[in-house]
């Protein structure tokens, strides 16, 4: 199975990763090989098995609700590439055109 150019561009778009043309060509081949490799699962008979949503063996335990242990807003924002007035700052979201 070989991914087409359109397919890999679609996955790039979904993953919000822009590839260069050279990278795309290389990854296309490698991803196709990996997909072929994991297709071995299709042949396995899993009838009678539900999906394993989680693998913990105990009943989920919730802690008491309550305030405490929060991170300081400034300390968190300090790590961002750009910020203003206590918020993250990003490039324009709505296209002016």
């Amino acid at each position, binding site marked *: 199975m070989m991914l087409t150019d359109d397919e*890999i561009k*679609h*996955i*790039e778009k*979904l*993953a*919000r*990763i*822009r*590839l*260069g043309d050279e*990278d795309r060509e290389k*990854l296309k081949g*490698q*991803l196709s*090989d*990996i*997909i072929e*490799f*994991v*297709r*071995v*699962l*299709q042949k*396995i008979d*899993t009838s009678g*098995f*539900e*999906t*394993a*949503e*989680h*693998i*913990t*063996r*105990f009943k*989920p*335990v*919730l*802690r008491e609700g309550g305030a405490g*242990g929060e*991170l*300081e807003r400034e*300390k*968190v924002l*300090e*790590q*961002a*590439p*750009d910020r203003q007035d206590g918020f*993250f700052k*990003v*490039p*324009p*979201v709505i*296209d002016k055109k």
Partner: protein
Amino acid sequence: MEYNKKSISELRKLYSENKVSPSEVVSFCLDSINSNDSKIEAFLKVFYEDAMKRARHLDGESPEGKPLYGIPVAVKDNICTKGYETTCASKILEGYRPPYNATVVERLLDAGAVIIGKTNMDEFAMGSSTENSAYKITKNPYDTEYAPGGSSGGSAAAVAASMVPVSLGSDTGGSIRQPASLCGVVGLKGTYGRVSRYGLIAFASSLDQIGPITGTVEDSAVVMNVISGRDSRDATTIPDPPGDLTESVGKGPEGMKIAVPRGYEDLDIADEIKEILKGTIEKLKAENASVEFVELPDMDASIACYYILANAEASSNLARYDGVKYAFRAEAESLEEMYERTRGEGFGDEVKRRVLLGTYVLSAGYYDAYYKKAQQVRAMICSKFESLFSRYDLVMLPTVPGTSFRIGERIDNPIEMYLSDIFTTPANIAGLPAISLPAGFAENGLPLGIQLLAGYAGEAKLLRGAAVLERIYGFNRYKEE
């Protein structure tokens, strides 16, 4: 006396007898890093000043009640250290200083440990050779032309090169055990939920576990005692404590039921490993353990299942690196373009491969065929192991099919690299505890490892068995020359 060449247990004894101070031990380790790490490149950051400061502070305190008093620890760079750069060896997190400590780091500090620095790894723990680091290539201390394994390659190499007696790694598909095997040290991954993942930068949340890499089985028990246990910040942590694991060390194997894969002689593994398995089986029987040959869950299915689930989870977990919240951002005119360029430029090749694969298997039209199918296979593997461990205490198998490989040899062949994990992924898929320990050397002088698996929450049995094998192999990196 070279204190960097002492086990945790030996150092604990020396501290309790007041024969050495934390600052002496820490300065030996820092000297060892200073003189060897330009060659090995195990560390991304070394806290020369702050580690000495902490050690001097501990000099004035008593070791009483602190199981890791004055013990130097190296921490993999995907574990958050408050105020110290934590990059996952990725360009996208370059300069990121978390405003909090991982729970394991808090527990180490409470136990009196000294954090020495952050170790190199495959970017976001994706890889089996540490070659996927955006910063440097770590070398195997036994032969610097060979890879240390991965993804916790820096952590394994740091212990193998006697720079620290212990490091923390993380294991999603074998990332503690595989490098431990290739570097001749002990690597332990607990039951899923045994150690809190709070502050471990997520790769695949249903598989990730933090664990210790040490020189001896006893040391891994000491460290596991400290880092394991319920954490209110990680709802998947197991409520019941594992008990004192050091009590498992030193018991014989009498009465233990050990399973070995049927037909292991025909597996595609090094002849030396077959010899080791054969010899171990005989010795275990001589010490009144029972050894039987069994059918293990399908390893090929396990690894395919692993690469679907791990990458699906990764594609979701790594969505947070969008150029808004942390460190790196590529300049762009619009938000959409900023996301795409930040991720295109900030992630390395392997991370892009995996996020794209994970996105593909979760996308409309493919979800049922890949992701859902893999979840069913996971349920099947879990149930097979459950039945196996209702009859046996331990499963013994190789950690990796052979010794290490040359740096550069597998980097352009992702599937060949993935196959290094063939014997390690089942423990993650089923959430079971597993340990790798050094079993000898191959003809080329590189270490070989043997792996044990136990049933759910079976760490005590696991360490009992591992300590027996350690004695049988007679491998002790700390013995006096």
